[in-house]
């Protein structure tokens, strides 16, 4: 599905940006609903958080944190490319910068997990 002409850093950054954004957007209503449980008393929220202690749900949560980091990094890439004066030679650096921030984010998570 991915054509040869698309195989470069910028395309994958944009694809990752879009897909992470899509998943985040779909997840947000659920996130808000769970937090809203606090309205029904702390026990309800506590219950939801307990439920989210299951390994599978934990994995999914971890995934969402990664997605948020991804979306942030790729978003910063776009903002830099669009709002800062840049030359061709800096293009690679900006890509690397985004990748680096991502790696740092992931390492951070692994450390805690």
């Amino acid at each position, binding site marked *: 599905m991915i*054509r*040869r*002409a*698309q195989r*470069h*850093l*910028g*395309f994958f950054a*944009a694809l990752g940006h*879009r897909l992470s954004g899509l998943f985040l957007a779909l997840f947000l209503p659920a996130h808000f609903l769970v937090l809203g449980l606090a309205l029904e008393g702390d026990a309800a929220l506590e219950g939801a958080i307990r439920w989210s202690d299951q390994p599978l749900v934990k994995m999914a949560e971890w995934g969402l944190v990664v997605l948020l980091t991804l979306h942030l990094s790729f978003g910063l*890439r*776009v903002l830099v*490319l*669009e*709002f800062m004066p*840049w030359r*061709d030679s800096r*293009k690679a650096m900006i890509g690397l910068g985004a990748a680096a921030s991502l790696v740092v984010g992931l390492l951070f998570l692994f450390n805690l997990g």
Partner: protein
Amino acid sequence: MTDETLTVEIWRGKDTGRFETYQVPHRKSQTILDVVTWIQRNREPALAYRFACRVGMCGSCAMTVNGRPRWTCRTHVSKIVGSGGVRIEPLRNLPRIKDLVTDMTPFFEKWQAARGRFEPSATRSEPMASIPSDDPERRIVDAGIECINCGVCHAACDVVTWNPDYVGPAALNRAWTLANDQRDGDRAGVLKAVSEVGGCHACHTHGSCVEHCPVGLNPTAGIAGLKRMTLSALLKGSLS
């Protein structure tokens, strides 16, 4: 080198068709356009393709070569073939006419939609405005002006594929040079034109255009410049 042969697949037909395979003698310093020409002269007289200058000036010879849009007259076969052969198709994102020839009409219509044409601010009887070569705006124009209208970036851009309204990197690159051209009589009009549906804001900064432009232009940077210019025009209220 002459004893080597290349296996070349070429698209025959229009939207429906098939790849035909040809064996072509591999020569030193052979370009993709040389290969296509050899096939047309020696094997397939009815093969349709386009070229004119053969030296990277006219922009008419662009095709898809092994999945990437390229100017074929300046693309050496030796750069393309690793272990496999060569597969040549028409450019993407444009209607096909026959074999390797695409209809460039929508491409140039989009240049017009992006106001990619010079609007004079003086008549021919007035003296020509001189803009010093170290003028910052002049430098911006110089960086983007060498476009040969080959359509390679247009074919490489995914937003052109996904969004039928999108005018594409070449048209916007031209609009960017005009938005910075002190001799243009309606620079505000350029900003309005590129703020329409399918204008510069539709670009997602993928950078496929920069990646593929054969003359090394950077439409992405120009489009980002248009985004900044239109934003400040919007905030100043001069966009409507």
